[in-house]
């Protein structure tokens, strides 16, 4: 798999670091990692940068993850970029809403690096 760039959107800086580490443990080579504390910050980053993968929490201040992935439809740099949600919200309703809003995968916290690998590798593989 080619090296990729990723955007990690989570209001916890610790969780952003854990997600990045999990991606590396999954064998994914990261050329660049962008971090955002909420959906609005994520959109600002995507206005000027193209990434290959977006990982996103749901419950965040300012703009939550579900609104963020809805807004991605209007962002040229986010076209065809796979989004995987990583969240404590584990209800079927949240999963269905996230997937219908465009998410390609869903990981419930707490998670293992293996679970990240299982969700992320297929969406990157199918993209390429």
């Amino acid at each position, binding site marked *: 798999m080619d090296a990729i760039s990723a955007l990690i959107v989570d209001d916890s800086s610790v969780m952003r670091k854990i997600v990045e580490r999990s991606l590396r443990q999954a064998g994914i080579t990261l050329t660049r990692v962008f971090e955002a504390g909420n959906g609005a910050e994520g959109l600002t980053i995507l206005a000027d940068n193209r990434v290959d993968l977006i990982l996103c929490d749901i419950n965040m201040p300012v703009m939550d993850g579900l609104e963020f992935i809805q807004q991605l439809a209007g962002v040229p740099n986010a076209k065809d970029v796979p989004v995987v949600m990583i969240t*404590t919200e584990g209800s079927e309703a949240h999963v269905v809403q996230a997937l219908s809003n465009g998410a390609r995968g869903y990981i419930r916290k*707490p998670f293992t690096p293996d679970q990240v690998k299982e969700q992320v590798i297929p969406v990157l593989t199918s993209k390429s």
Partner: protein
Amino acid sequence: MKSVNPTLSTHGNRHEEWVPLLDMAAREVFELMMGSQLAPSAGTEATDLTITSMVGLAGQLCGVMSVRCSGKAAALMTSKMLGVELDKVGTEIADALGEICNMVAGNFKNKITGLAEGCMLSPPTVITGSDYTLRSMSDTPPLLVTLLLEGMPVAISLEIHT
């Protein structure tokens, strides 16, 4: 993660039956996110709990989930979560403990049918220090689980507002 799935409605006010779920929810978070097995406290008195993380629950179940531990235990958790040496841990401790409480609360509610969708979680609040009094509006005793992380107590409680 193990799924137990008792229902919210069948429990009524018999919330003490949720204690094993709270225990399981906490153990899973520590095992999956830190690779740590929590041990039973065996009556160990929980002292020196100087860091408290709290997450509010609202909706079908209202209350407050809290995780309390010593500064040393919180630093160890942060170190394990980030995969860094203990002496490299700094200001991330509050953020890490907040995330732990958030994950325990989320994992707990996902184990009770109907609660995952019907109960919302607040962002975590973290208090440092022990010289404070927390007055809850709860009219029932809190559900309390105390476990040991490498010999250090970690107290998890759920105060329920009926």
